[in-house]
């Protein structure tokens, strides 16, 4: 691999690395798990620990004082997690340079394939992962200090996060719809333990809901995939290519409409579950509120979008086979319902991590709405929205994790005067929420503007849908503004907070703002990506 002679090898490397490197890092973490104690004993200790916690119905502080030399080692370990985001980002940009004029790169006989959408998504994954992994050391440090994380738990955390990144990267670089499904299901399994990593009642509950609901949903998506495959086979596509996305797109007009319709419905429902769309959305607030903050950031920032990117891929097939009307109605309906639900639940929200989770649903439904509109402008806006939301939401979640550590509560009503207490952190959180409320210069404004413009331009009732959506967004905005203001504003006494923990957050905010001002070199990529999914 080191000897990159031919273009094919290079592209194969670029396509493989985003998934392989995180996997390798995960493996390295797994091997480097501290072996100071026999594994079985550690397990037993952990088990008793968990039981004691359960009996006390709350976290019991079992502080294991780290030895001095271990501390630096652990810090290095925490920072090593930045390798994979860096690799994903690099591969994403290198691929972007290749495909931003509309071409694509293939490897392993089409199993892996990168077009502009892939590059775009890789860039988003890489950046969000950079923020999440960059703020992980501070978060883990806080967890260790509070005695909530043993060395083993931290190590397992790293392994799972890296595996999670690998699964998501695989989901965007594969061209095979079956592999895409496998990769997305894999994210569920990997993150289940991250959601439940604290062994408390609530985290177990969240993990159970997460796994059951997502697995059920994703199973439906598989059924849909099977039906599409069936339709493809009946349309005369060979077995090897019947799940190949480019082939399906090229020959979608020959697919049987009735079967495709059924398949697409199931796929939208199924991947919609992972994307936080109604009706299988309910895992989302629970999982996001229980997962460690960096993981919440990853889940909300990219996992949802990766799942949605799958829907975008299927949408191209469906539109070619059925005309745009079907997915439009389906997606618009789902988007509106989701938006209404998210807005309603934001209104009386009392937990700030759940608040952020519902805000994710709000934004995913906007993206879904853009997909329903389906014009080039709308699709570009959707992709830009994916990026902007990923950045802003990951910053918000990472900041919320630190806030949780500082204040010790996730209740909005119990947090006061945060700006006075921890100005840099609260400032980052506030700005992230401002970005999520779609104020310029953050890119979410530009994308919402684009979606609205596209929506009114589309006609055929979508104007009304857009109007209702805008009203619901207003409701969500009001709820978000009131809650956040309550947390941040007011008098407070300054507390110790190292500003160094805030740099990943500021980086994310700066990136989000920069995207909102000018896309610069990404302009072509965005347009090519929108073109790749039918814009």
């Amino acid at each position, binding site marked *: 691999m080191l000897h990159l002679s031919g273009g094919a090898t290079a592209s194969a490397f670029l396509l493989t690395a985003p998934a392989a490197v995180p996997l390798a890092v995960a493996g390295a973490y797994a091997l480097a798990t501290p072996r100071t104690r026999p594994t079985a004993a550690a397990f037993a200790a952990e088990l008793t620990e968990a039981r004691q916690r359960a009996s006390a119905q709350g976290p019991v502080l079992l502080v294991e004082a780290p030895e001095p030399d271990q501390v630096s080692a652990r810090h290095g370990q925490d920072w090593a997690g930045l390798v994979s985001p860096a690799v994903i980002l690099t591969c994403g940009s290198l691929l972007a340079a290749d495909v931003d004029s509309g071409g694509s790169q293939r490897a392993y006989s089409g199993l892996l394939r990168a077009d502009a959408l892939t590059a775009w998504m890789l860039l988003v994954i890489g950046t969000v992962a950079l923020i999440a992994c960059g703020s992980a050391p501070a978060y883990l440090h806080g967890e260790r200090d509070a005695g909530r994380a043993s060395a083993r738990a931290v190590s397992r955390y790293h392994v799972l996060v890296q595996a999670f990144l690998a699964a998501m990267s695989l989901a965007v670089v594969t061209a095979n719809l079956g592999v895409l499904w496998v990769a997305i299901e*894999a994210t569920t399994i990997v993150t289940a*333990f991250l959601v439940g990593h604290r062994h408390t*009642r609530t985290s177990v509950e969240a993990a*159970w809901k997460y796994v059951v609901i997502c697995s*059920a949903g994703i199973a439906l998506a598989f059924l849909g995939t099977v039906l599409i495959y*069936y*339709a493809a086979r009946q349309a005369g596509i060979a077995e090897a290519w019947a799940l190949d996305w480019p082939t399906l797109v090229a020959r979608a007009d020959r697919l049987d409409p009735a079967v495709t319709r059924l398949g697409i419905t199931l796929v939208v429902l199924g991947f919609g579950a992972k994307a936080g769309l109604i009706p299988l959305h309910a895992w989302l607030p629970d999982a996001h509120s229980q997962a460690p903050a960096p993981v919440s950031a990853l889940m909300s920032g990219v996992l949802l979008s990766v799942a949605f990117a799958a829907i975008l891929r299927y949408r191209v097939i469906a539109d070619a086979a059925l005309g745009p009307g079907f997915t439009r109605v389906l997606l618009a309906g789902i988007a509106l319902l989701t938006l209404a639900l998210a807005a309603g639940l934001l209104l009386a929200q009392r937990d700030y991590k759940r608040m952020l989770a519902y805000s994710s649903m709000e934004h995913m439904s906007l993206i879904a709405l853009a997909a329903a509109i389906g014009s080039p402008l709308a699709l570009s806006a959707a992709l830009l929205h994916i990026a902007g939301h990923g950045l802003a939401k990951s910053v918000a979640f990472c900041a919320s994790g630190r806030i949780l550590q500082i204040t010790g509560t996730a209740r909005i009503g119990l947090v006061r005067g945060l700006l006075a207490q921890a100005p840099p952190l609260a400032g980052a959180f506030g700005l992230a929420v401002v970005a999520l409320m779609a104020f310029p210069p953050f890119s979410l404004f530009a994308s919402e503007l684009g979606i609205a413009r596209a929506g009114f331009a589309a006609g055929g009732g979508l104007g009304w849908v857009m109007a209702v959506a805008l009203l619901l967004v207003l409701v969500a905005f009001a709820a978000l503004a009131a809650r956040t203001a309550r947390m941040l504003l007011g008098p407070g006494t300054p507390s110790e907070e190292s500003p160094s923990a805030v740099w990943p957050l500021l980086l994310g905010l700066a990136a989000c703002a920069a995207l909102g001002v000018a896309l610069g070199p990404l302009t072509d990529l965005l347009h090519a990506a929108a073109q790749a999914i039918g814009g």
Partner: protein
Amino acid sequence: MSGGLYTQLLDLACGAFLLAAVIVLWMRELASIVRVFALQGIALAAIAVLLGAHEERWDLIAVGIGIGALRAGVLPYLMRRALAALTQDRRRYADGGAETRETQPLVNVAASLLTASLLTLLAYAVARPLTALHPTPATHALPVGLAVVLIGFFVLVTRRRALAQVVGFLLLDNGITATAFLATSGVPLIVELGVSFDVLLAVLVLQILTTRMREAFGTTDIDDLRELHD
């Protein structure tokens, strides 16, 4: 194998497959449910093998056997182990007896069966275009797969025991696999492998979570999982 025999055997297998799903709905003792589920796995394997034999594709037969091993062997084994763990704990938890029975599903048995029949009808209605696209004995049986998917989902929704929910999820999965076989004689191997692996992992995850739940909540009644809400 003659066409008629093949059709009859296939129909028989599919009937058994559907019947097993309905019986799961009927049963209350978790151990019996697991047993029925294993039988369904065998029926599923039979479908795959029959299809393979009909089309004279040895790889399909192999896949069928593999699936049979997974669904009738490994998965029931894992669940039985989890069940055994629950039973062993009886002394520690006073209500242990209730843990192995689905005493009070959210919808009672009679209504469940009625719903199952309605769902089957729905599956037939939905599957019409599927059959029409390529009418063969196999695709004629497609509604069975869809019906099992729906019934599995229904079990998932209405059963209160963690393990019963796992079974529901697996029924759903069985239904999908059956659909895949009946419609297209199975998806490509790499996908099939991935799917099976994922299902296995999902069950493992759920099993571990069941244990943790038992530790944290003292029960595996899913209805007690209500601490996270708005």
